[in-house]
């Protein structure tokens, strides 16, 4: 990795170490073994013969597995060691590390191998904010194992370190005395097991299937996942590599919430967001629907189960609201943070209905659509009641938890993301434009569900009338006549927040844009102020807060662009959609197929390569899903009744694209496209 860190993960457990495999975490850096939002290992240092090691190479074997090739000693100009050390590490519910020493010498060798271990049991939130612990840490040695424990009242977490070969355990780690014959080898397997304890010292959570699994099982599971996805045959090596990378990373980001049995949904991203997020899980499920529809099913089920039912200011919960974020760490447990779950998101609720409908259109799974009718109705009700904070019929947000709640409850959630053209920040509540698009789409789709599956044509008529009215009002109230685009938001007084932003692209996706205005929107999206050549910027050049490396005020987000391209297609702008797709897919090539969360908004002519945003999360679920949605868009895939429509508009440079065995209500079907769209060239 470019930052010198090696990451492997499985579900919500992940290990971040240096290139030697060592962990030496400080209070505020995200290295260590993390599980359930808690750092279970903050120190993990291997020495051989009292010496630290030097990495010769690091192989990322799988997302859950890495191999480090090492030699003893550090700081030498050249290496002339007679000993090789191999650490092969795989994540399960904790991790396993196979330690192998090879003696290349003609004489036997006797030495001490030692692993130092420690845990600070930091909550992930504490790591982000460098906070102090309130409980007590203890360490003990038990039958050759090292047990580190943390206790705060009834809250108990432990980390147990053991090995397959007998070790001398002390309170700082495990030590082995090793004798290796000439040209011989020695190995052991180290186990690090994090445990959440409940009453009476029982485990809080049942074992997941992987906890009892073997190395081979995890590899088989990945192979099955890849085999079940459609096969991409195409001329472009780059696109093939990006597609495979996306599928593998999506497998890595699968997260099994406590209540989902063995089913999984997409977590948001590594390292900070290996948990369930309403918005991220829904949008990623939408992107991946033609490829791995089962993710959408789990997302709908789990988010539906957790739907808000009460008014709770601490969690910003309302009846019908879909959650924003779930956490399992100490601060959440003691209600010092509201994430149990936290509901402060204004888009997850309408998007839930959008996903439910889109899921049925692809899969024909009417059972789920019928089963979750009450949840869908409650979500639709939330749009018109609790979300209408300005009293003007628009979805708006304002946190009620003013200590630890989120200020901006749309996807652009940083403090300065919503601004007027002149840079001022509006007050609250804020009604951003894309929320109205999502609400419109939710009503239109809700009407289809009501008519077709819930046997309630009256409700369907009502929703359609509301949608029509919303579209009419929106086109009147949000339109910035001077600039010929939609305002970013309405402020607390109902006045337009008049910055030009990428949000207008989401409006195309939702269908709320009047037909006679769509061309103006497409022109802006592909125009010099928004389009960098790599993609559409979050905020247009010329806005007061524009900054090409500002998180939501000028960077290019691959996920954002994937929905913008889908929107352009919806209004018939095939070439423009292909241009956006081509730009981002070209960028993916510079990141070995793994698109970061965001990259700089610099002109493509200026930088020649996409500049990664400094602290971008990677892999991140909706960036991982972006190439999948681009493929759908380029091939023009859309379910129509029991059939799949294919209407390709593929850039010339990509050439021939065949997507084989696309799963859906039709069984499996193939789609073909040939690169005929000229998207222009970059030097």
């Amino acid at each position, binding site marked *: 990795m470019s930052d010198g860190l090696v990451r492997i993960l499985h579900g919500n457990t992940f290990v971040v170490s240096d290139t030697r495999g060592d962990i030496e975490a400080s209070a505020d850096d995200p290295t260590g073994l993390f599980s359930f939002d808690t750092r279970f290992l903050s120190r993990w240092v291997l020495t051989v013969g009292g010496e630290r090691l030097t990495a010769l190479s690091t192989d990322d074997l799988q997302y859950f597995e890495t191999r480090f090739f090492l030699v003893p000693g550090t700081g030498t100009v050249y290496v002339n060691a007679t000993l090789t050390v191999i650490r092969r590490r795989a994540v399960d519910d904790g991790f396993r590390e196979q330690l192998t020493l090879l003696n290349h010498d003609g004489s036997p060798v006797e030495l001490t191998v030692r692993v130092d271990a420690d845990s600070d049991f930091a909550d992930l939130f504490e790591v982000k904010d460098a906070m102090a612990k309130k409980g007590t840490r203890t360490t003990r040695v038990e039958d050759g194992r090292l047990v580190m424990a943390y206790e705060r009242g009834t809250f108990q977490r432990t980390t147990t370190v053991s090995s397959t070969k007998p070790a001398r355990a002390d309170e700082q780690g495990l030590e082995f005395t090793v004798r290796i014959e000439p040209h011989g080898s020695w190995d052991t397997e180290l186990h690090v097991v994090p445990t959440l304890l*409940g009453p009476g010292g029982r485990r809080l959570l049942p074992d997941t299937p992987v906890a009892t699994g073997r190395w081979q099982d995890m590899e088989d599971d990945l192979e099955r996942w890849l085999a079940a996805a459609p096969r991409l045959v195409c001329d472009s090596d780059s696109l093939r590599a990006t597609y495979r990378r996306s599928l593998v990373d999506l497998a890595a980001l699968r997260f099994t919430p406590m209540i989902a049995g063995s089913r999984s949904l997409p977590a948001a991203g590594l390292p900070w967001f290996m948990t369930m997020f309403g918005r991220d899980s829904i949008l990623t499920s939408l992107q991946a629907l033609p490829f791995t529809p089962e993710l959408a099913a789990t997302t709908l089920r789990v988010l539906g189960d957790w739907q808000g039912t009460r008014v*709770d200011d601490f969690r910003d919960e309302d009846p019908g609201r879909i959650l924003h974020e779930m956490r399992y760490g100490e601060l959440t447990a003691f209600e010092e943070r509201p994430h149990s779950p936290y509901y402060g998101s204004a888009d997850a609720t309408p998007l839930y209905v959008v996903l439910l409908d889109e899921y049925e259109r692809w899969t024909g799974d009417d059972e789920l659509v019928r089963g979750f009718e009450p949840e869908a109705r409650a979500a639709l009700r939330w749009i018109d009641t609790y979300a209408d904070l300005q009293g003007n019929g628009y979805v708006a947000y304002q946190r009620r938890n003013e200590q630890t709640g989120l200020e901006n409850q749309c996807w652009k959630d940083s403090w300065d993301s919503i601004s007027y053209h002149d840079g001022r920040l509006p007050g609250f509540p804020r009604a951003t434009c894309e929320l109205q698009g999502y609400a419109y789409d939710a009503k239109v789709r809700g009407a289809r569900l009501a008519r077709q599956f819930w046997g309630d044509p009256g409700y369907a008529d009502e929703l359609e009338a509301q949608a029509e009215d919303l579209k009419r009002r929106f086109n009147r109230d949000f339109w910035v006549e001077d600039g010929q685009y939609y305002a970013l938001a309405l402020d607390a007084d109902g006045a337009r927040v008049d910055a030009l932003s990428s949000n207008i692209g989401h409006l195309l996706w939702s269908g709320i844009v009047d037909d006679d205005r769509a061309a103006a929107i497409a022109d802006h999206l592909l125009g010099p102020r928004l389009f960098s050549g790599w993609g559409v910027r979050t905020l247009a050049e010329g806005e007061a807060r524009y900054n090409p490396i500002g998180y939501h005020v000028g960077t290019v987000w691959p996920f954002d662009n994937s929905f913008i391209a889908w929107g352009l297609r919806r209004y018939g702008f095939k070439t423009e959609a292909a241009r956006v797709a081509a730009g981002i897919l070209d960028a993916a090539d510079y990141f070995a197929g793994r698109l970061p969360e965001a990259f700089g908004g610099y002109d493509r002519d200026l930088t020649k390569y996409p500049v990664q945003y400094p602290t971008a999360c990677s892999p991140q679920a909706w960036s991982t899903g972006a190439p999948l949605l681009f493929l759908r868009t380029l091939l023009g895939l859309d379910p129509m009744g029991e059939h799949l429509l294919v209407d390709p508009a593929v850039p010339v440079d990509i050439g021939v694209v065949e997507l084989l065995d696309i799963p859906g209500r039709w069984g499996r079907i193939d789609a073909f496209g040939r690169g005929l769209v000229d998207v222009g060239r970059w030097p």
Partner: protein
Amino acid sequence: MTSTHEFFDDLARRGHDPLLGRVTADVRFDLVGSGETEHILVRIDHGDITVSAEDAPAQCVVSGDRALLDAIVDGGTSIMTALLRGELAVDGDPELLVLTQRLFPGRVAGSRSEQAARERRSP
């Protein structure tokens, strides 16, 4: 009469909760503390609810201190955070726990913005 008893008596009187329309299962609450463990068995059949003191097998068993259950039904804390703190034990299907927690009140209600929203709520 404790908050927990009042809550379950009220639930039994209502006899139905649409929030559990999708659920058909038995959930048992075991209240521990001084004296004998007390059982509250909630049988749910598509949202129809009956409550008894039976110690019968259930698909989900939640056990915790009496005072803790009182705090949960009073909205002083939540099932999820009590579970994470290790104060509550759950056996069986955790999905049922999540669905059942829909019945309990939240932590704090009634801010101004909320009241405004409630007034606008359609009947």
